[in-house]
C-alpha cells in the first residue's frame, strides 16, 4: 500500500524553537518523496539496491554448500522473525557494502527540503532545518534512514 507519511518518535529529544519558545521535541513526521528530492532519493535507492544485490550474491554463495532442508529451515525462521526494523536495514546495508555516509547526507537534504508551508519533514509541527537535523542523535538518524527505506523505497514490503 502506498504511504503518504510516517511518524517516528525520537529516542533522544532535541530542543527546537516553536512559536517563540524553546521546547523539547520528540515527534517527527516524514512525508513521501516528491520529485523535489529525486536526486537524494535516487542515491538512497541505489545504495539500498546495491546492498541488496550484494546480499543475494553472498547468500547464494553460502547456500550453495548447504542442504535444501537447512535452507528451508533458515527461510522459515526469517519469516517468523517478522518485520525488519529501520536500524536493522541500515546495519545490513552497511554490512553489504552500501555507502552509508552518502545515504546520511542524502537523508539530511531530503528532510530539510521544502519550505515552512510545505515541509518534507516536520518535527513537532515545525519544519526540519539543518541545525535541528545536526542536533539529532546518531542512533535516531540511523533509524529514520531505515524507516524511510521501509516506508517509501523498499517495494518488498508491499506484499
Amino acid at each position: 500500500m502506498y504511504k503518504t507519511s510516517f511518524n517516528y518518535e525520537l529516542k533522544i529529544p532535541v530542543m527546537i524553537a516553536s512559536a517563540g519558545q524553546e521546547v523539547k521535541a520528540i515527534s517527527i513526521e516524514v512525508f513521501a518523496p516528491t520529485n523535489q528530492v529525486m536526486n537524494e532519493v535516487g542515491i538512497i535507492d541505489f545504495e539500498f539496491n546495491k546492498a541488496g544485490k550484494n546480499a543475494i550474491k553472498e547468500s547464494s554463495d553460502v547456500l550453495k554448500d548447504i542442504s535444501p532442508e537447512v535452507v528451508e529451515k533458515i527461510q522459515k525462521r526469517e519469516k517468523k522473525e517478522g518485520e525488519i526494523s529501520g536500524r536493522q536495514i541500515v546495519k545490513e546495508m552497511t554490512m553489504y557494502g552500501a555507502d552509508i555516509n552518502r545515504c546520511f547526507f542524502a537523508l539530511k537534504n531530503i528532510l530539510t527540503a521544502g519550505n515552512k508551508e510545505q515541509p518534507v519533514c516536520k518535527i513537532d509541527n515545525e519544519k526540519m532545518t539543518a541545525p535541528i537535523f545536526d542536533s539529532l542523535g546518531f542512533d535516531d538518524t540511523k533509524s529514520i534512514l531505515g524507516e524511510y527505506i521501509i516506508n517509501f523505497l523498499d517495494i518488498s514490503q508491499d506484499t
Partner: protein
Amino acid sequence: MSVGFTDGQIRINNVAVPVVPGTVNRKKGRGETSVEAQSLGAGIVDTVHTVDTKTMVSFFHFSMKPTVENMALVDAWKLAVGLNTIKYIGEEINEVYEQMSVTNDPEYPDSNDGVIVVEFEGNPLIK
C-alpha cells in the same frame, strides 16, 4: 591571555542566520539596578538597591547583507510578533532568547555596501 568572543552562531526559529561580522550586540534583560542611600542619622547611611523591572527586556541587535534571502528572513521575523526564538551559540556560550519581536522598521538599502539593521527585543534571557 584571553581570546575575545566574536564569532557565535545565530539561529533564529531553527534557521542559521548569516550576519555581518562584528555587528552582534545583545543585552540579557537582567534589568537596571538603582542604588540610593537612606540616612540613619549621625552620618550613618544605608543603601537601597532596587531592580527596575520595567527595564527587564533583552535585546539582540545585528546587521545583515541586503540579499533577497536575508530580506525574506527579516520580513518573516517582523511579522512574527513575539513569536521569534533566538539561539546564540559559541564556545562556552549557549543563550536562548524567547518571545522576541523585531522592534525597528528594518531598512533595505539598494547598495552593495549597505546593511539591514535588525533589532530584536523580548523576554529576559532564560539560559
